[in-house]
């Protein structure tokens, strides 16, 4: 078997394993879905009526809720990667000459599938709460593209963090800043309505441009500048996460 096809076979084997993990630990998926749904009720149904954002609040908040869904669902990835590292499972695989690409790819793809299922559920609920996107087919593709890129970026960063962390408990901590960051962006209120300091932070942090890009696609009025900034942020984060993850994988043990 050549190196490439061996990596493909091994990736499939590892992905099958991660898939079983998700099925047998449904709490991970449940956590990713339940908090954003609660948040949606809170923001759209209870608080949203008081916000004046210029458009229907369900339409305004849904892109941000999609982002929080990714962030709430990411901790299990960090914990799983770290357990593999700290229990010696990765060492076992290294001695079996399983490529690190196979191990890491499987975690990225598994995270992607879990996030997409959670996001599909969230979008379904937002429809029930009055979300009425005016996106064309191409706009939807653009929105999906932004979502996929974001999951890849956050996924690689999380995997790197999970590999480098000392214990599964500390690996899970990556979820905390990720859960908070969307609130300090234009996810729920426009940045220009925030106080000084918070406004500047919100304007320049990655979630704002990612959410603006997503919102642009979903409302059928894509913003080229937001999309370019969002793609740049995602690509940069992904690269940092990928390089860091590869280095940690080789170094530890």
């Amino acid at each position, binding site marked *: 078997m050549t190196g490439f096809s061996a990596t493909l076979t091994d990736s499939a084997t590892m992905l099958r*394993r991660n898939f079983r993990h998700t099925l047998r630990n449904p709490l991970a998926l449940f956590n990713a879905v339940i908090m954003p749904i609660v948040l949606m009720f809170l923001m759209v149904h209870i608080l949203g009526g008081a916000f004046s954002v210029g458009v229907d609040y369900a339409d305004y908040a849904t892109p941000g809720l999609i982002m929080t869904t990714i962030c709430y669902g990411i901790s299990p990835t960090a914990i799983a990667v770290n357990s593999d590292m700290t229990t010696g499972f990765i060492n076992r695989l290294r001695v079996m000459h399983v490529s690190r690409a196979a191990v890491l790819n499987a975690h990225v793809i598994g995270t992607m599938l879990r996030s997409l299922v959670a996001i599909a559920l969230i979008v379904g609920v937002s429809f029930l709460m009055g979300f009425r996107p005016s996106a064309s087919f191409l706009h939807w593709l653009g929105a999906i593209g932004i979502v996929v890129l974001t999951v890849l970026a956050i996924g690689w960063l999380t995997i790197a963090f999970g590999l480098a962390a000392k214990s599964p408990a500390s690996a899970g901590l990556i979820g905390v800043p990720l859960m908070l960051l969307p609130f300090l962006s234009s996810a729920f209120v426009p940045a220009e309505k925030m106080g000084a300091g918070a406004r500047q932070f919100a304007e320049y942090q990655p979630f704002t441009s990612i959410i603006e890009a997503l919102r642009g696609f979903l409302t059928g009025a894509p913003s080229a500048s937001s999309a370019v900034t969002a793609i740049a942020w995602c690509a940069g984060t992904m690269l940092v996460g990928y390089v860091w993850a590869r280095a940690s994988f080789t170094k530890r043990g």
Partner: protein
Amino acid sequence: MSGRPAIVIPMNGTAIAATGLRKAYKDKIVLDGVDLRVQAGTIFALLGPNGAGKTTTVNVLTTLLRPDAGQVLVAGHDVTTQTRAVRAAIGVTGQFASVDDLLTGEENLLMMADLLHLPKAEGRRITRRLLGRFDLAEAAGKPASSYSGGMRRKLDLAMTLVGGPQIIFLDEPTTGLDPRSRRTMWEIIRELVADGTTIFLTTQYLEEADQLADRIAVLDRGRLVAEGTAAQLKRRVPGGHVRLRFADRRALDTAARVLAGSATDEEELTLRVPGDGGVRSLRALLDRLDSHAVEAEELSVHTPDLDDVFLALTGHTDKEIKA
């Protein structure tokens, strides 16, 4: 063990040969010039307390860690330049049972077969046989998280055996196991070596090395302080004796007079007689007491164990280092 063809080991029956192994983390020296030679088809025990460098040695020998200096041949291949060939010949069971808790025992083994790219049917056949051999058939469909410590270790070892490795590294295979599980693990290890496999194990239990190993190397603070068979190591330590306890002071004094070279403990009413504790010398000893009409209340034989060896070789006991 499996359907894989056995790998013929050159090097005149030497499975593992290491010379001048050195490894340091920053300024902390972990391995300070270790030389090892393990004959194929034997059990070799690396004995030492926590922090002696045992796991680091295993990690170097199994390609997981590059040594700073020294040469290592495993199954005839260099661990730093022929990583792939070394990995094809070895199996490693780490210090912690690295089984997948959310998968069943059977799924864990099938996953190993898939990662070794074995044909499906062969993977299933090997899995079935290993589950049977390690008494795990009944629990095969249950998640590994429900297994006892002993079962997890067995599954862990079974996973290592799927590829039919020629040389197996076991890093503290019985640490944390109850005495019964430990004995089961010992039996399994003995069976493996009977199949022609070479075993390199690390342990901090002197009894374990004594029970299993053909040869023992004692590692202390990154250096080998002794190497040989259990008997050779014990011979380096004086201290074999027979202890006799008497009913009263008069009997003790008489016995002390007739048995040359003995040492009395008047408070305990005991007598310490140097000797190897063999049946013949014991009979002679008792005959001599008999002929002087002295009767001992109690008799016990003390052979030097590896604990004595460790103390004699390193100048400190295991416990002192741990403290």
